[in-house]
């Protein structure tokens, strides 16, 4: 009954508690009364939270709860962890996006089916639902479209839905759940929907920074607050803004300096960025600005994973995106601020 119960096991119990009485009730008067009361409580709770004063900052708090159907989320979670989604039943989505470890595997290039090596650094799945588009180059409009990418990529799961569906149909649990939730057999469309639902539920809410935004002055220490101030004054915030601290625009890698020339490792096709998708010259070296929400947890950094620690990442960004150097003290403070960005989620262990 309590609105704030939204985490982990508590959430689970919540749903049990609410459904059990419903079943037992022979829809008598007391039952209807309880339902109405619940409705009133929920309706009343929402405006209160939405109306809570939030600081007017370029970075906004993440929504406290997701809007997804819990049963679809559960099904999506099953599929997300199901290795049958790969050619040789060896790799699930979670293989490269382990949820307990920040939603990515911490490798520069993830290993696909048969040990194949990917071409670009795997981003986190957390808060992915808030991104303006999917993949570094934004070639997928939404999560549903994105899922086809790794499934079909010969360097990743290397399979097709035509191959996956018959395998899933052998599993009575899937047949039952798809039947209940989609009134259909196991289909690619439904599977994508379920996985996307699950991914949209992966919101790392209630971070120290968000609590600060919502008015809790004690949520951040001095260093973190200073770090945020520097983050803004150096101009980082121009790109890394919004609830996701990024992820809502594209930007050139090396806006104020030639990053790729200095990197000295030669250009890879992936370095072309959004150009690969649009074919427009104006998009060459443009990438989706990544969210910094879990940056503290998801080293290595950048699409090419060229940096493996946060301070260096901050320095590189300053040099090539802002056209300046930042002293170590400031770097440290900005890093402290970034560490206040990750929120909580039952899948995420911290």
């Amino acid at each position: 009954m309590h609105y704030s119960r939204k985490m982990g096991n508590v959430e689970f119990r919540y749903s049990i508690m609410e459904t059990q009485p419903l079943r037992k009730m022979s829809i008598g008067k007391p039952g209807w009364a309880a339902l109405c009361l619940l409705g009133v409580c929920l309706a009343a709770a929402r405006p209160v939270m939405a109306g809570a004063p939030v600081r007017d900052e370029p970075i906004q708090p993440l929504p406290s709860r997701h809007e997804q159907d819990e049963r679809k989320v559960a099904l999506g979670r099953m599929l997300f962890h199901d290795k049958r989604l790969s050619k040789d039943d060896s790799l699930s989505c979670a293989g490269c996006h382990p949820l307990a470890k920040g939603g990515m595997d911490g490798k520069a290039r993830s290993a696909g089916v048969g040990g194949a090596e990917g071409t670009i650094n795997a981003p986190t799945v957390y808060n992915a639902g808030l991104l303006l588009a999917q993949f570094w180059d934004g070639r997928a409009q939404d999560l549903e479209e994105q899922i086809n990418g790794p499934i079909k990529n010969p360097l990743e799961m290397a399979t097709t839905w035509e191959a996956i569906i018959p395998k899933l149909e052998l599993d009575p649990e899937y047949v039952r759940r798809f039947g209940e939730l989609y009134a259909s057999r196991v289909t690619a469309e439904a599977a994508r929907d379920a996985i996307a639902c699950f991914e949209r539920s992966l919101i790392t809410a209630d971070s120290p920074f968000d609590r600060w935004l919502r008015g809790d002055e004690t949520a951040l220490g001095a260093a973190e607050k200073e770090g945020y101030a520097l983050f803004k004054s150096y101009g980082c915030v121009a790109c890394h803004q919004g609830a996701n601290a990024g992820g809502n625009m594209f930007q050139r890698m090396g806006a104020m300096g030639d990053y790729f020339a200095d990197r000295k490792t030669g250009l890879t096709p992936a370095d072309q960025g959004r150009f690969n998708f649009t074919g427009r010259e104006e998009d060459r070296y443009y990438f989706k600005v990544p969210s910094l929400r879990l940056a503290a947890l998801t080293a290595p950094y950048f699409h090419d994973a060229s940096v493996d620690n946060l301070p260096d990442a901050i320095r590189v960004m300053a040099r090539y995106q802002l056209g300046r150097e930042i002293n170590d003290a400031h770097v440290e403070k900005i890093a402290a601020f970034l560490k206040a960005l990750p929120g909580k989620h039952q899948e995420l262990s911290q």
Partner: protein
Amino acid sequence: MKFRFAGWMQYLLLAATVLVVMLFFQNRAIDVEQHNRRLDLLLHLTESEGALDRLVLLTTFFRLNQYDPFVDKTQRVRQLFAEIEKTGAELKGEVGIRFRADLAEYLDAMREKLRLLEQIKSKTALVRNGLHYLPLAVKETDALSPLLNELLYCTLFPTDANLHNLHNLIDKAKPPAATTGTGLDAFNNALFHMRANLRLMGELAELRDSYTAVPSRERFNSLQHAYAGAYAHLTQRSELYSLLLLALTVALFTGLGLALRKNARSRAAAEHSWEQLHDAVESLSEAFALFSSEGRMVLCNKRYLEFYPWLSELLQGDATLDEIFRQNTLFARLRLTGYEGSKLPVYFPELAKGGTQTYLEQYEDNRWYLASDTRTSSGEIACVRFDISQGKKTEQELRKLYRAVEQSPASVVITDTQGRIEYVNPKFEETTGYAAEEVLGQNPRLLKSGDKSEKEYQELWSTITSGKVWRGQFHNRRKDGTIYWESASISPVRDYDGVITHFIAVKEDITAQKRAEDQLRLNATVFDTTTEGIMVTDADNRIKSVNPSFTRITGYLAEEVIGRSPRMLSSGRQDTQFYEELWRQLYKRGYWSGEIWNRRKDGAVYPEWLSLALILDEKGNVTEHVGVFSDITQRKADEEQIRYQANYDALTGLPNRSLLEDRLDRAVAGARRERSKLALLFVDLDHFKTVNDTLGHVVGDELLQQATGRMRVCLREADTLARFGGDEFVILLDDVRQAEDAAEVAKKIIDAMSKPFVLGGRELFVGASIGISLYPEDTQETAVLLRNADMAMYRAKETGRNRYQFFTFAMNEQVYQRMEMERNLRTAVDRDELFLCYQPIVDLQNERVVSVEALLRWRHPDEGVIDPDRFISLAEETGVIAGIGLWVLRQACAQAAGWRRQGIELAISVNVSPRQLTAGLRVDQIKEILAETGLPAAALKLEITESLMLQADTTLDWVDDLRELGVGLSLDDFGTGYSSLSYLKRFQMDILKIDRSFVSGLSRHQGDNSLVQTIMAMAASLGLEVIAEGVETQEQLGVLRQLGCRYIQGFLFSEPVVQESLLERVGAIQADFHRGFLSSDSG
């Protein structure tokens, strides 16, 4: 014409209806709901576009500090794209094409905006980032503060003049004179950022202009305008369609009204003509009914009701053809028949279209209706029925009479007054052999046989033409020429006026009657002349008559037996029970046959085959018994002979195998009952095969007969001696008290068989091996008893012939071992288990070893070294010998050649089994081996046995080839077989080997050495060398030396040794000679 008009009307109506339906759907094509949704979506899109424009404006003026609102809006816009495109695709026709084209243009503009928007976001971020940082950068170098202010001013009011001014200022900006080092760096850095910012601001302004220049608004308006116009047009058209729809509907209803009126009028006309038709139908004398095309009755007349009284109820109501047919069948047992060749009706509804079917209906009360069903051109069915019952009745009467004539047992001929045949019945055809068509129109005279006079015929004619009946007999001729007797009655037929129109002759064939008389005569003759005795007795079983054969067989004359009972013939051998059974069967089945012993008049008893039969009167009472019998004395004797032959061996007269088995079964059963013992002796003659092969079958047969005689005297009367096959005999000893009894018999037989047989003028030693099995000790089963005895016999043979052997259970084990050994033997060569030993052959004259005999040994993995005695015969039986033999030959030759290369010249002897020859040991194989090993042919001696020589022809060729090759041949085991000198000559042997059995008997003192002496003499005369085998003692050596035997082989010199020890052994022998141990005077 009318029909055509109606057709046109129909088409018109149909066309109108289709038009109405089309119009209706055309109107529905405009879906207002979709239209509204489309408009809604467009509205939403343009709203969202406005929102985006607003956001862009805010962004470019840095009024927006984060881009999340963009994300929501652009995603919303993209969704709307998809939805609008979907509704666009649903729009049909010209309007749809136009709409989609306009929409595509509009969406292109929108997408362009979205593209620019993203660029604006990126650029703005960079500018913002500069604006954020510049104050910090400038702070480090005060000189640039005014410039910064100028820049911020420009940001707020980015007019061309301002920007131009700022460019100039930045270009002219110089660091303060005193600044060096970090200060200068900071200055340059700030300047760099200012320049960059200025450039970016310019780019941003351009992007913003491009964004606002995108003609999305115009395109949206043109889209909306065009769509609204098209929609209005559609709506107008829809109204037009509605009007058309209304007009058509009114027209349809008018048409309908007219049609109804017309229909009413034509119905009145139809009713009128209906009445007319009805009257016409009623006046018909035939029954008439009309059915609709579906088979429903339309009308019927009164006659119809009269014709089918049982249908009255049905015809009141709703009658159908089917139902009428059903009730006709049910209530009046309707039967349908074809009429004058027409087919049976294919009943409604199958009645052929437009055709007529005619058939007859017959009912159980003898009503007959001629039915005619016609399908009219309009599809109705008209049924007409004529009552033909009266005609049918007459027809049936006639048919009966006709039938009587047809079936008459007498011939019937009808002629006209001229005598021309008009009709003959089947009996006539049968009697005369003429078919009706052959005689119709002919005069009956054609049957004349010619033995009736013309006068008699004239008399016949005058009688019948005068109207009287003539009766008499004809002696006529059939078609096939045979003559027959006929009694005839010919009468005239008159018409109403009393004029004779026809003559009818009724004739009976009396030939059979005449023939029966002949038959009786014939039967009497048979009775008198048959060789079988016949006796007829009356119901009281008193003899009525007998035939001459009766007298011949029994000796009794007819007068001696007539009136007496047949019991007088009884021999008394059958008891009363037998006769009772005989009579019972005779009366039950009407006959009896069987064997019976009777007594002749002279008192002799004889067997006869008697067949008895009953003769019954018409009431089934027995009037007489007939007995036919033949003397079967001779046949019985023949049967006995045959039985004997089936069970006894023709040669020896002994029970054969089948009789033996029969007796054995009985004996075992008896022994089981009596709890007594049985013994079975399996006797096999030793060397029988050799006798048969060498001396011929006549001698062999004689031997078997003599052996039989000898064995017989050793047995008791109750014992069975049987020939089991070939040279095998089986003796069944009934009721033995103990095993020793059987052994006693076996010993006697062996003794008897050991004595020489004199056959074809010569003495032969044969001997016998006997196996004994006992009941019940060994087994309870007869078959096993035989098998055990057989096994024991083989064992006796194996252990040295001419002896007996009781079966032991160990033998079963041995048989198993034999199989096991066979299995091992097959792989022995491959597993390298065979090896050769060599026994030196010494030349006494030169006092040296000249040769060695290769002897095969088998190193069995489990049993150690096995002697050839134990496995060679097995190898021969199983054919393995072929492979082993070749191996031995190759090995021995290789070894001898090896010694030769060492300078030791030894010849080598290798044994060749007869089976090897039959298994195909070819001379060219031997030649090949010699070539292979490099051994000279003269150094190889093949040792063959006498039995090999018995295979005569093939061996002869083989030996010839060998001799040509230069290989030596020695005859092994000489003296043990039945070799004759002629063989030795024919086969051109080089060497004779005297068998060890002769050598072992040699003694200096006994002086009975004549056999060896004879062999020596014979060999000398044939120019053969002689080797004495098995020499073990100095004494034997001495005798042999004395007899002039040059070559010696035996333990005295050396046992067979392995190749490694041989040379050493040879050396030792040489040394012994040198030392004089073995010289002539040393014994």
